[in-house]
């Protein structure tokens, strides 16, 4: 008896399906944020929800991110389960007071008497001139604060499971999506399932180097691993998926085995997740483990708009592979894959505009 072909969905459709299934299951779930109910429906990620659940549960907001975050928190404490949507992560800076001072602390500072089951959806942009204020990966700011959970799924399967887990979680969850992942496809079960807090994914097996890729950098690291395989280097790519809580044990075990840890963040390095992961592994493994470390992330600049500058702002499969090669074969000549071979399908396909 042959098993049926797995169903393949795009990231955006898997995300939409997760919210749909949770809204169907639980009437306390509602979705709000600027543009969630318009004809473009946040790049399709909220498509059909208004027609199915009505304007009481799917509604737009004034451009008042600060107060709307407070409204979401109050509604959550009063027993509802809001999903607050922001079309760019940069806009979360307008929500910081409520997220950091109230959402993260409500359960603790009010002695465990209230809970804040809130999901804050946000999308990171990249390319097509998204620039300094539409491209930021600010997850390091949120993982810094006790009381917030942070998740950055990198494929269609995980985005559905993480969204369902986030909605069912009794804590505030900062949910990071990436615009360039929206059209990527993977096998997605039709039934509801969770990819819960603390779950990570070993994407490729390898013995020579452990590469951790955060958010879309997981996809870029997988492509880098393919390039490395062509020159005889096997990389173990780990997608941490959840950044808080972080599955450091899986990363630690892999790094101990390969002896090399390269962390690729979709964010800046200073005070960020790459520093945290390297520090946590270094502390736990100790100097006797002899692990070699390296990090890559955004250039320490704002994100430029011109593609000729932007190309140098982000790590990419070529630069990741070259860095890993240098870690694994320090005695050998420097190796850089061709720019053409280093392109990712989602970058080749994407024509803009956003």
């Amino acid at each position, binding site marked *: 008896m042959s098993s049926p072909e797995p169903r393949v969905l795009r990231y955006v459709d898997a995300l939409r399906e997760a919210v749909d299934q949770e809204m169907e299951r639980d009437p306390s779930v509602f979705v709000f944020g600027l543009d969630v109910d318009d004809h473009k429906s946040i790049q399709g990620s909220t498509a059909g929800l208004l027609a199915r659940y009505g304007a009481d549960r799917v509604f737009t907001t004034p451009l008042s991110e600060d*107060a*709307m975050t407070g409204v979401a928190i109050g*509604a959550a404490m*009063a027993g509802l389960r809001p999903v607050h949507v922001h079309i760019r992560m940069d806009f979360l800076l307008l929500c910081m007071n409520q997220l950091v001072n109230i959402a993260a602390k409500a359960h603790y*500072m009010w002695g465990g*008497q209230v809970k804040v089951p809130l999901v804050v959806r946000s999308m990171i942009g990249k390319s097509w001139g998204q620039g300094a204020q539409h491209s930021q990966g600010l997850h390091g700011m949120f993982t810094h604060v006790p009381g917030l959970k942070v998740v950055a799924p990198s494929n269609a399967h995980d985005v559905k499971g993480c969204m369902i887990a986030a909605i069912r979680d009794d804590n505030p969850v900062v949910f990071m999506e990436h615009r360039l992942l929206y059209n990527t496809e993977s096998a997605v079960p039709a039934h509801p399932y969770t990819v819960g807090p603390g779950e990570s994914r070993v994407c490729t097996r390898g013995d020579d180097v452990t590469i951790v890729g955060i958010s879309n950098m997981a996809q870029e690291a997988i492509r880098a691993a393919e390039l490395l395989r062509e020159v005889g280097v096997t990389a173990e790519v780990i997608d941490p998926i959840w950044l808080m809580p972080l599955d450091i044990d899986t990363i630690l075990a892999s790094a101990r085995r390969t002896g090399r840890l390269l962390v690729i963040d979709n964010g800046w390095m200073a005070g960020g997740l790459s520093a945290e992961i390297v520090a946590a592994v270094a502390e736990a493994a100790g100097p006797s483990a002899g692990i070699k470390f390296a990090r890559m992330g955004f250039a320490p600049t704002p994100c430029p708009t011109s593609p000729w500058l932007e190309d140098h702002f982000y790590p990419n499969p070529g630069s990741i592979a070259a860095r890993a090669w240098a870690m694994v074969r320090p005695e050998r000549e420097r190796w850089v894959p061709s720019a053409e071979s280093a392109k990712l399908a989602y970058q080749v396909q994407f024509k803009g505009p956003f």
Partner: protein
Amino acid sequence: MSVNGNIVEDEAHRLYRALRRIRRVEEVIAEIYSSDKIKSPVHLAIGQEHVSVSVCDCLEDGDWVGGSYRSHAMYLAKGGSLPGLMAEMYGKDTGCCRGKGGSMHIIDVAAGVMGSSAVVGSQVPVAAGYALAAKRAGEGRVVAVFLGDGATEEGCFYETLNFAALHSLPVLFVCENNGYAIHEPLAKRRARPGGICAVAEALGVPATRVDDGDLFRIRDAATSFVTRMRQGGGPALIEAVVYRWREHVGPNEDYDGGYRPLSEALPWMEADPVARVGALLDADVRRKVNEEVEAEITEAVRFAEESPVPRPEELYANVFA
């Protein structure tokens, strides 16, 4: 005052007890403060208790209130546990936040006190979130959120009033305007110091200003607004002009600080709402209330002093739900 006959006695008795209880709780907190047993900065509402008492008098079980760091009056007026409050002041495990909130972050979910917050204005939108849930539930519940005049200068105040009006949320914004943000007078902060109600009206929130400290006028306004809200009407704002008798934070008076003269305070002290409502009662009745209040406070202090301190492992509890 708009009261007479038997209603006067029942009402006055109830209101005086509430006023006197809050006044004395805070005076006792101020007395204990110098002993360093209270492990929390305190922002006392002495002189402005009547706003919480009058608004909470027209609220019911199931309604919610939220407020600022100056919320002892709100908490007690809505029925928050006095021993829980006092133990929280002492940092004890039996405190209303188990020693993790202190004076500025008080809560009693069972009594409908949804919590107070130390960042000015930050509970205003949270209250609107509760009101959204109340509207969805459709049971006629309302929310009252207490804020100072300073909070009306925060962006989230404008954002919240607009949203509350847009969605006809059952939330009463209660602005206790004591004229100072810490030590800065309204005239140094607003081009139109008297314009708080006009701002609310412009955003679609009906507003009433009560400038003479009359508890019954505040209560009449609140009753009218709350009644309308229970029937599906939208938000409203009451601006109650009040005077803070003590310093911004701490147990003392600060008329020697140079930013406000005692002469400014004296008319408010002469018109003390606690004394005014107390004068509606027979002296014997008033004395009995006073004795009962003192006994309750003594018991709350004893409870706080004898309660255990939190165990060290409690530090790590409740970071996540």
